[in-house]
């Protein structure tokens, strides 16, 4: 496998922000997750839960609809109308048009804020959760037809208003509410009477979600539990069904703020920033990958850029960038030994963004002299001059007009080109020299895809540029001729990492479903190794991993080595060794080393995995062949979260 000097970096204080709200489109199987910092992430559940897009947030982003802050929005089932609940007690109706929303009218104004809204599936009525009560509006006339009073909590909380955090209006006119007194209540929406009260928690019930067929409701609480209620007939074979509390899931340590109930799974997110997909075992086949619990805690893209020649790291935060110089050690040691550090790692620059927009992408040139980042509105390029004790940063003031609405930024390996992916899957090429930058060309292809490019990968020799977009297309451009060289045959799963081999000129791509392809740019066909891999198939353990490979790099000393990593492992694929059989054991290096020599030889195969490093955000090979490993242990993230609600634990 080879031995490396490893820079184990743990000073990237990446902190994801809390999940606030989620929406699921069951036709496209895509989930939108809104975070507290205003970012929206799109996950494709059909493609192994891959995070396709991230729409960067913005400080203080808020919509006001002439009635103070909006507490809730809810669309009707046809998607033609949008209702917004405001602080001043109005429910405002908006018409959803092709490219915008237009204010239509107000429903009759109430005293007290509107906290939650739910449309009846027919669209004729709207239930609104307020303080101490639920109102039912007729959506045609705009008048409130019913007022359902919600009990306050007992004891000391008697004097506090109860907040109806969430309501759900079912097709049979049942209204289900979750409130701050910890109750889930079931109401008859026709008569406005309370049918049942389930006391679920001592704290708040924050969110409710209903399954498509309305046979199951889940409620998320401040304790981090999710409680399921099912519409079950009390005796077998009879029709009188009632809502019965059934299962309890506990996958969160903090408030569950957002819930989605799909046909086969419960998707939850909250203050602890993780997205949890909990399959309902009665709805999925058991013992498949589908039935496994999945926690998504880290982004599926790189937030770290590494200047391979200069030994610098650029960390991307939502509102600032940090540039670090790696530490140095002149000692050598045995494997596993930690070396003393001569020079400590040092934070050179912290660059705050101008304006309120958050950073959507950033890049650092391999030589370490250029730095660039983009927000939704603008692109900024800086020139860095770093000597041993003198650091200067200079903004390049005049940038070409073509650099706008950039999704991804990348420098060529000789640092004299900047590539920026722009709208319609085009790539803008900008030439850099000492003083200024000049627009060269826009690389386009003819597939007509409107999806943004999320991967840019130039080759080492500067001849090729590979791009991948979320339509699962991979295009390779010839940079000498500035035109499309070829397109890799489309594969159904989105590429998560693409890279071009420096010597053989093969393009290696890894996809969200964990498949690996190698495509020869010269022959414009899949390489022999790739075909063999497809024939034999990948090892089941490889396919069962639940985080995507986020970067591919190559070892200049050994051209047969491909280095990949995901969040939980680092892997070197040795193309010269035989591929593992599906039935054999898939040892990692630690176990393999403990085996006796003859067995070790017998068991060795092309996939050499190393699990010494966990929660990997980035792995880079520097020019001096030392490895930079950026880790962000989950415990550190958890430690930075606010304290959860206090719970009595048994035997404490």
């Amino acid at each position, binding site marked *: 496998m080879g031995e490396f000097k490893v820079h184990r970096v743990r000073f990237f204080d990446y902190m994801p922000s809390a999940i606030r709200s989620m929406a699921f489109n069951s036709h496209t199987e895509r989930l939108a997750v809104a975070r507290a910092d205003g970012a929206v992430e799109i996950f494709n559940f059909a493609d192994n839960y891959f995070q396709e897009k991230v729409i960067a947030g913005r400080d203080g982003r808020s919509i006001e609809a002439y009635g103070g802050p909006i507490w809730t929005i809810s669309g009707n089932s046809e998607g033609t109308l949008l209702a917004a609940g405001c602080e001043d007690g109005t429910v405002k109706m908006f018409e959803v048009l092709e490219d915008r929303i237009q204010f239509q009218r107000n429903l009759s104004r109430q005293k007290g804020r509107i906290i939650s809204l739910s449309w009846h599936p027919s669209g004729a009525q709207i239930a609104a959760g307020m303080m101490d009560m639920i109102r039912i509006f007729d959506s045609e006339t705009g008048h409130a037809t019913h007022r359902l009073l919600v009990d306050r909590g007992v004891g000391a909380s008697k004097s506090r208003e109860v907040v109806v955090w969430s309501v759900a209006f079912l097709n049979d006119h049942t209204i289900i509410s979750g409130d701050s007194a910890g109750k889930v209540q079931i109401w008859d929406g026709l008569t406005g009477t309370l049918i049942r009260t389930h006391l679920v928690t001592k704290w708040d019930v924050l969110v409710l979600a209903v399954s498509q067929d309305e046979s199951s409701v889940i409620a998320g609480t401040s304790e981090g539990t999710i409680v399921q209620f099912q519409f079950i007939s*009390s*005796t*077998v074979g009879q029709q009188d069904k009632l809502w019965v*509390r*059934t*299962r309890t899931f506990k996958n969160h340590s903090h408030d569950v703020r957002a819930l989605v109930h799909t046909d086969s799974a419960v998707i939850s997110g909250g203050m602890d920033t993780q997205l949890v997909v909990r399959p309902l075992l009665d709805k999925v086949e058991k013992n498949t990958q589908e039935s496994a619990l999945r926690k998504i805690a880290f982004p599926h893209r790189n937030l770290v850029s590494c200047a391979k020649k200069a030994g610098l790291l650029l960390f991307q935060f939502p509102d600032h960038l940090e540039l670090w110089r790696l530490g140095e050690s002149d000692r050598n040691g045995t494997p596993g030994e930690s070396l003393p550090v001569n020079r400590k790692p040092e934070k050179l620059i912290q660059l705050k963004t101008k304006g309120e927009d958050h950073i959507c992408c950033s890049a650092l040139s391999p030589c370490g002299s250029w730095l660039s980042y983009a927000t939704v509105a603008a692109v900024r390029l800086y020139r860095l001059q770093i000597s041993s004790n003198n650091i200067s940063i200079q903004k390049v003031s005049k940038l070409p007009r073509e650099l706008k609405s950039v999704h991804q930024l990348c420098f060529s390996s000789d640092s004299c080109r900047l590539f920026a992916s722009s709208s319609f899957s085009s790539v803008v090429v900008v030439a850099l020299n000492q003083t200024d930058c000049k627009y060269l060309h826009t690389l386009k292809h003819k597939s007509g895809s409107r999806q943004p490019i999320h991967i840019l990968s130039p080759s080492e020799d500067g001849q090729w540029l590979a791009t991948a977009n979320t339509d699962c297309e991979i295009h390779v451009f010839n940079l000498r001729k500035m035109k499309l060289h070829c397109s890799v045959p489309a594969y159904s799963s989105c590429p998560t990492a693409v890279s071009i081999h420096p010597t053989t000129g093969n393009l290696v791509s890894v996809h969200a479903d964990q498949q690996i392809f190698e495509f020869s740019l010269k022959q414009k066909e899949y390489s022999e190794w790739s075909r063999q891999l497809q024939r034999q198939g990948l090892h089941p353990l490889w396919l069962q991993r639940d985080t995507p490979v986020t970067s591919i790099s190559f070892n200049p000393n050994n051209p047969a080595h491909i280095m990949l990593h995901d969040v939980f492992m680092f892997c070197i694929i040795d193309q010269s060794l035989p591929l593992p059989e599906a039935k054999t054991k898939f040892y990692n290096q630690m176990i393999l080393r403990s085996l006796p020599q003859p067995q070790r030889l017998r068991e060795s195969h092309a996939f050499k995995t190393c699990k010494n490093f966990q929660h990997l955000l980035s792995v880079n090979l520097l020019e001096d062949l030392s490895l930079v490993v950026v880790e962000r242990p989950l415990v550190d993230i958890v430690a930075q979260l606010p304290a959860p609600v206090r719970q009595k634990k048994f*035997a404490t």
Partner: protein
Amino acid sequence: MVEQAEIRVVHQGGSNITFREPAISSDSRFLLCASGHSVKVFSTVTEECVQELRGHTDLVTGVLIRPSNHLQAYSCSADGTVRLWDFTDGILIKTYLIGYPICSIYASASHDGVVFIATPTKGHKTLDSLQLLAVHLPQTAGQLVETSDLSAVLSDVSANPATVAFGRAGEYVASTNGVQLQIFFFKKQKSFRFSLKENSCSGRSNTFTCVACHPTDDCVATGHEDGKIRLWRNFDQKREYTYRTLHWHHGAVRALRFTPEGSNLLSGGVESVLVQWQYQQESQQDFLPRLGAAITHIAVSPDGALFCTSHSDNKITVIQSCVKVSSIIQGLVKGEAVQTDLMVDPRSKALVLNGKPGHLQFYSLHRDRLLFNLDVVQQEFIHQEGLDQFQVVMATLDGAGAWLATVEERKQETVEAELNLKLWAFDEPSQSFILNTTVSTPHEARITAVTFDPAARGQTSLLVSCGQDGLFKAWRLAAPGHPDDGGPSWSCDFVSAYHGLAPQRCCFSADGSLLAVSFQEVVTVWSPASWELLLTLSQPPGNIRDLCFGRLSCSKFLLGTTNCNQLCCWNLLTCSLEWSTSMEVSLLLADPLSDNMAAFCHQDGNTDLFVFKPSEPRPLFSQKAVCSGRVSRAVFAPREVALESCEESSRWLNRSQLYFLTPLMDLLTFSTRAEEERLMAASKQLVVDDSVAMTPFQLLLGKRPPHHQAVGPPAKLPAPPGGSAAVRELLQSPAHVLPAAAALCSAFMEALLGVATETREKKTSAGETPSDTEEEEEEDSDEEMETRATRSEEAPLETDSAGPVLSRAQVRELRRVRKLDHSWFSSLLDS
């Protein structure tokens, strides 16, 4: 072989009443418990045992109120029979022969004439895999009924009877085994299986321990090893089943039961807390804590007002409406092991042994109930695993029951064992033992034996203790140095050792003139009066295990057993070995009331019993395979009434009874055939209730209609008196055509009174001698009052045959007495 059949090993007294779930009668007045080979009927109010249903010849494994008749009960036993009882009167109604050993019995109201039994699967000897059979009980007459209509319902049933439950109106049966729940629907003949993972996320076992079904909803509650309760619903679907998890217990859930209306779920476990969950509102629980010991079964009365919890310490607690413990039925407390010897308290004739932790229990075998617990350790017992606490390891009573010596010990891994020797004096006013002297660390190492000097009755003043520190000490009751110090107390009088060997056993001769102490291979005999070493006996190889002086005619013999399978008998007069034999004797003990000795021999995994006289070469009695395993505790308990058996082999049981504890902590005893016949006769007498001997008292009672007929079957109801047309009209015409009751009342009353007036008229008109008329009158009224028709036929017969022959004067006197109105007396008896 005739002798072998003469004496049988039986459960008699002190048997486990919490072996199976108790059954509560429908009026909540009686509690039926399986207890050894019989079923005991306790009153829930007075805690007394009101009936004992005897008849089974093996362990009773289940009791159940018959669903179709709440005055009858089924019981099943390992002897392969199901018996139907009238439990109020203790009458065996029917015996159904099944032919296989039965582990448990179930019934449901909707399956009429069917009971469900769990029996071992054919071919499987072990009790791991049982099958549930439906047995159609044939409706034939006769006491003994063969059943042939067996059909298998479920296989793979667990041996724990709590793992089978019948659901709503008997539609389905739920059974769990291991980590699998199986539900079988009778109508569809379809079963569903649901399994859990072996271990939960926290690494604790998910194994099912018990199951209960909701009476009206389709909801099955299961208890688990890790303390969770799951409420299963939608279990008629292969995949869309669902369950809710409740978690309060930290140990395994041992019992679950829904209340009859289904409004509450009761659960219990090691915590000894009864938890009541509100159905559909499970976040609200009520607790009844501090029930004393782990809950093993819960039973609920049909009206839901009374709960019974069985506990692991052989106790049944009766709880009223989940708030108040109303009574406690305590059996012989059985712990993991009995560390003290079995003893008999000479005053109360009670069996004395370890009871609750740190206590000695006094259990009356004759009355089969616990008399009291003596708190020896006097420290709080903490229910927690792995905690070393003081335990009573040894106790001994003196001959008169005036003094009790106890040794308590706390073993710790790091430090040496902590020891206390306590001496208790019997206090007459309080009728209990009062702590007199506490000696902390009486020996440096563990105490191996303690014994009182039996010498002068009631005036015991000598106690000998042996320790592993190589010393034996004599303790003497001495008056205090200062008169202010209170009463006399015990102090060490004499310490001795023998060649640094550790003493193992010590034993006084019956008259207290000799003390034998065994030091490994050597037996030393001392004179307690002068503390002089009289002689040493030795029979190598092997250390002495038990030591016993002969009694009465054999008091010149000293018997000892060694751990090299030797039973030796020394003659103390000649100081030589009289005889020895090679057998592995695990326990040797002497009958205090005779010169017999009993030796329990452990051989091939079984224990054999030999009863012998030291002076005679042939054993009086021997029985092979008394029980499996090694018997290490036994006692001769004196009988209250001596038997008069003339059979040679059973004569040794005439004056005292031999009780022993099996390794499984069952208290067994030997009973003779005569004794059993007497017991059976006593229970049969109840069947023929009418056969009361013809005595004057009986005649008094006979004057009013026997009230027991009123509760009999309706066919025997007395016909309306006098055949009066008015009465007949009233009773036979339909209610809706009758005039108002007020209008009828006077006519009806008159019709009733008419009989009496008629007789009175007859009496006056006849004008004969009073005595004769009376006789006639008596006969007349007998004819008219058909209520007594049957009796009047029988009664003269009895007077002729069985009744005492009376002189004429006596007869006249008797008649005079009969004429007197004794209704006040009968009304007294009634009330």
